């Protein structure tokens, strides 16, 4: 055999690797989280290794402290028993499985069991007696040990024949499951549990039920003449309206782009970039600037026609306008895929069977689009439900779930359980829609173009219909442009509604740069949050892309037991509204074993796991375009799956990688809903800074800052388009089938990943 001839190593090399990592974590690195940044290495000078704040677990144990960590050290040494054993030996796999599983679960158990005040669980205290020891959040040492146990476990799985005995694939699956479990499922579950906790800190199902079914959430007073309905009904009603309207508009635009001979389809596609680069509440701000009490249009109507100013726009009408503006492009992206995906030969067949254009549209085209319409509706529904920025600035007395959660946490009452319950209701709605989208629609796609040789041209719409869609599309486009011009213009206006003279004041105040004795001085008020945002976005983008593409690789290229729940789990965070993630992170990561609130890490983590589906979708779309035989031939030529991933798949995925990088960067810059719970004085983000200015009625600065953000992201997206675009031209020279499939790579990736991109909510 090709590889078995190599000298039999005394201990299998991967085992050595993970044992080393584990022992490094146990015996060398500080076990607990540090106050200072680990990478400054200042802990080396704080009495390391004996000071118990920075000591490795080994030194803690030797000094008789935290003795419950000692078994971990012993477990890490057990794999030495595999000396001179080969991987195919059944004992090899069994030992690793046992060590990995025991070690990992023991690590979790002691982490959750022993907290800041000794035992977390009263039954443990009664069982083992009181404990003097207490412990803090886990640090780098614990992280490495956890990784070591995890990968020893997956190595054991591989050795026992899981996923064809492939270590890389087994390890990747284990890694993804572990991080998704810890950073998506665990926080949600902890939030769920906290929903049962009363203000006095005791578990109570009664309090839970009374809160869950309270009038505040489910009241229907507005139907019977009362002042307001429950927030759940408000959210639901708004989301359904937004879903219907955006779907209709999306269909109109898709028809304009593909069925009317409209020559500027590229312009329409360019417009779809707007919601991606616009922080979600900016549209709401612009609506206020136009239609608010002191809005430009309101004042104009007042002076010209004598229509008195009113607060009509604060509430359902304003929210509807803002969300429809923000989410129509998403519906357009879904619908254009659906409309283009209908094989032209179906429609041509209908025409040869003597159907007129109108009859063809009505009897063939439209029914074939039905699943796509439902899909677009559900996306609009989820986006509207999850939207946080617009209701915050525009909601008025029309309360919705996402803002209600926020006020439960930051408001005077600080009711974590109430927030958790509201989050559960919101989660139930979005997950319901998500479930419907995946399992009900998933099996009903009529997309008939297989990608190969289906010649033919889509027929044009009947003239009347064409004129209608043109008119609607033109009106909407003008309105959108009007909104953006307003934002740009308003950033130069002294005091909107009072003093319309132009000024640079807002920009100077936020983005001034000066000199002092230390050199360049970022004196503007916005710089601090701006650089933090850029830093956090730059750190989280590559992580998001990496984890997304790895997941996509597993989903597209590997078969393993439990793949369907795995896929569902990884895509789930798409349906979890940002506010829910925010609340659950606050609940879960405020106390040991994972103590992250107030750090930059928690922001990075929330972005990585919120945006992971973007990377997964981009990766899945482009990887499905790469013929599977390429991997297989690499494998039969002797490369292992890691080498194949690195040398064949990654190079072919370059455009998708770039797209995933840029989109996760942009999403990290525009997101508001999750991070508004997670920011701290040290780590403030642009969007939460802007929302803060809006709350202080400093609209000028907020708008100017938003305009800068939009501009920065426009540049980022533009540069990416240039790079990806030139790549595509470069490939066209290749010709042939493979080049064809590669050209599809970036286009498909773009089209399919974008629907998930907006809705930072």
């Amino acid at each position, binding site marked *: *055999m090709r*590889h078995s001839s190599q000298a039999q190593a005394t201990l299998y090399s991967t085992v050595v690797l993970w044992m080393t990592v584990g022992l490094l974590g146990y015996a060398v690195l500080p076990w607990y989280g540090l106050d200072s940044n680990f990478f400054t290495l200042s802990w080396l000078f704080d009495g390391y290794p004996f000071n118990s704040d920075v000591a490795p677990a080994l030194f803690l144990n030797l000094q008789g402290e935290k003795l419950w960590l000692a078994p971990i050290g012993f477990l890490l040494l057990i794999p030495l028993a595999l000396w001179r054993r080969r991987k195919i030996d059944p004992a090899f796999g069994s030992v690793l499985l046992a060590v990995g599983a025991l070690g990992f679960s023991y690590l979790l158990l002691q982490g959750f069991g022993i907290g800041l005040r000794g035992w977390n669980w009263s039954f443990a205290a009664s069982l083992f007696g009181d404990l003097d020891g207490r412990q803090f959040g886990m640090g780098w040492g614990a992280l490495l040990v956890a990784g070591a146990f995890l990968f020893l476990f997956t190595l054991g799985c591989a050795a026992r024949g899981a996923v064809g005995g492939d270590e890389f694939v087994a390890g990747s699956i284990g890694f993804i499951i572990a991080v998704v479990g810890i950073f998506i499922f665990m926080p949600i579950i902890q939030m769920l549990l906290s929903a049962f906790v009363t203000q006095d800190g005791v578990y109570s199902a009664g309090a839970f039920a009374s809160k869950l079914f309270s009038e505040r959430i489910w009241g229907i007073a507005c139907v019977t003449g009362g002042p307001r309905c429950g927030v759940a009904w408000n959210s639901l009603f708004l989301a359904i309206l937004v879903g219907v309207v955006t779907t209709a508009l999306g269909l109109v635009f898709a028809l304009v782009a593909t069925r009317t001979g409209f020559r500027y389809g590229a312009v329409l596609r360019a417009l779809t970039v707007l919601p991606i680069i616009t922080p979600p509440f900016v549209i709401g701000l612009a609506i206020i600037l136009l239609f608010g009490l002191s809005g430009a249009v309101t004042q104009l109507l007042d002076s010209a026609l004598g229509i008195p100013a009113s607060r009509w726009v604060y509430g359902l009408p304003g929210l509807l306008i803002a969300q429809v503006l923000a989410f129509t492009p998403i519906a357009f992206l879904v619908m254009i895929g659906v409309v283009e995906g209908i094989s032209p030969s179906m429609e041509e067949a209908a025409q040869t069977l003597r159907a007129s254009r109108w009859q063809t549209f009505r009897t063939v085209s439209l029914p074939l689009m039905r699943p796509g319409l439902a899909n677009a509706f559900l996306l609009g529904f989820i986006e509207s439900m999850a939207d946080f920025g617009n209701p915050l600035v525009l909601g008025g007395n029309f309360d919705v779930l996402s803002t209600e959660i926020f006020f439960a946490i930051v408001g005077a009452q600080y009711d974590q359980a109430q927030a958790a319950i509201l989050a559960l209701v919101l989660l139930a709605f979005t997950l319901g829609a998500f479930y419907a989208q995946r399992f009900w629609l998933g099996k009903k796609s009529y997309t008939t173009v297989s990608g190969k040789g289906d010649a033919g041209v889509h027929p044009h719409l009947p003239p009347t219909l064409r004129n209608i869609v043109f008119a609607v599309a033109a009106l909407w486009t003008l309105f959108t442009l009007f909104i953006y011009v307003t934002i740009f213009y308003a950033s130069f206006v002294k005091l909107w509604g009072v003093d319309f003279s132009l000024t640079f004041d807002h920009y100077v105040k936020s983005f001034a740069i000066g000199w002092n004795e230390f050199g360049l001085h970022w004196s503007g008020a916005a710089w601090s949050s701006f650089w933090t945002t850029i830093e956090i976005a730059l750190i989280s983008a590559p992580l998001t892309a990496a984890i997304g593409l790895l997941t996509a690789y597993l989903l597209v290229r590997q078969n393993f037991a439990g793949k369907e729940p795995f896929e569902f789990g990884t895509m789930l965070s798409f349906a979890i509204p940002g506010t829910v993630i925010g609340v659950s992170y606050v609940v879960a990561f405020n106390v040991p074993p994972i103590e992250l609130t107030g750090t930059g890490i928690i922001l990075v983590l929330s972005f990585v796991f919120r945006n992971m589906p973007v990377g997964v979708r981009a990766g899945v779309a482009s990887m499905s375009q790469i*013929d599977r035989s390429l991997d297989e031939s690499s494998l*039969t*030529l002797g490369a292992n799956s890691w080498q194949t991933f690195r040398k064949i798949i990654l190079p072919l995925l370059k455009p998708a990688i770039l797209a995933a990088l840029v989109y996760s960067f942009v999403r990290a810059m525009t997101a508001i809903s999750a991070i508004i719970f997670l920011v701290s004085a040290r780590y403030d983000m642009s969007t939460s800074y802007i929302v803060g200015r809006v709350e202080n009625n400093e609209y000028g600065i907020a708008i100017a800052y938003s305009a800068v953000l939009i501009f920065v992201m426009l540049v980022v997206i533009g540069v990416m388009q240039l790079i990806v675009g030139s790549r595509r031209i470069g490939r066209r020279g290749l010709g042939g089938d493979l080049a064809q499939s590669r050209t599809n790579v970036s286009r498909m990736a773009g089209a399919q990943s974008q629907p998930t991109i907006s809705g930072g909510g």
Partner: protein
Amino acid sequence: MAQIKSNAASVEFRKVSKFYGKSTVAAVKDVSLLIEAGKLVTLLGPSGCGKTTTLRMIAGLEFATQGQILIGGEDVTRLPATDRDVSMVFQSYALFPHMSVRDNVEYGLKFSGFNKQDTREKAQAGLDLVGLSDYGERLPSQLSGGQQQRVAVARALVLEPQVLLFDEPLSNLDAKLRRHVREEIREIQQQLALTVVYVTHDQEEALAVSDRIIVMNNAVVAQDGTPRDLYDQPANAFVADFIGEANILPCEVVGVDANTATVKLGPITLRVPSAHSAVGTAKLAVRPNRIQVAASGTPDTLPGRLAKSVYVGSHLELVVETELGNVFVVTPDVDAVVAPGQDVGLGFAGRGPVLIRD
């Protein structure tokens, strides 16, 4: 100068079955076979018969659900593709589009522990062997289909695998090129004495290149033999009909002795080779070109009436209605004047008809 050598080894399947996922329908059912070293063996069958699954199990791209697979006498049943000494030429060629032809050919060598110079020399030798010495720097997409095919062969050959696999290698080539490339493949195989397993659904291709053909149908081996065996002595109706064309006629075996059986076919009596037949009703397979058309009433002929006559250049295709059903006949005598409606007699030569199992 580096040479491409052969490390040909045998392949053996012992009662191998394959079920995909939770499916209860076998893709390959209880297959046992032995492919000798240095032979070109074809897996032939209609789509979905399990031939490609069988090939992929040899490659290690699929794992057998039950049974044992041996290559060169060693058990490789659980060994993944990476660790098997087997190379494969894919239907789509699967050349890496982002690498030059040379990088493609060197790809596998880099993972096999060769140093830089050996890698380079071996790759060049491989390209020389397939006649693409000067194409190393091109990208796959700058080559024609036939050239891409040859790069794929070179890439697989340079690893000097124990077994070389071909998955429908000619299906993306046009008809003229197919004949040429299949002769090249056969030539290289014989020159280097490689063990080659070749999958195709084209029976003509299979007959032309193979030392042995394994015909598969519905996940099992339908027949295993030399091209001549399969054509002249099909074991069952499926093989008779799949390899070439055959008339399957009902008959009755009235007597069996050592080597021959006496068979009543309608009104006439024939003596045909008997392998394992017993007295009773049976089926007789007769190739269209093994039937002679004679004047009506000729002794020992099956009377019939000509229903259709189609002139296709090199021969005539006739359909004759008989009491046993329609019989398809091919006759090289294109000048014979035959008109539909005419009564004829069909004669069966001694070597033509074969008794088959149902």
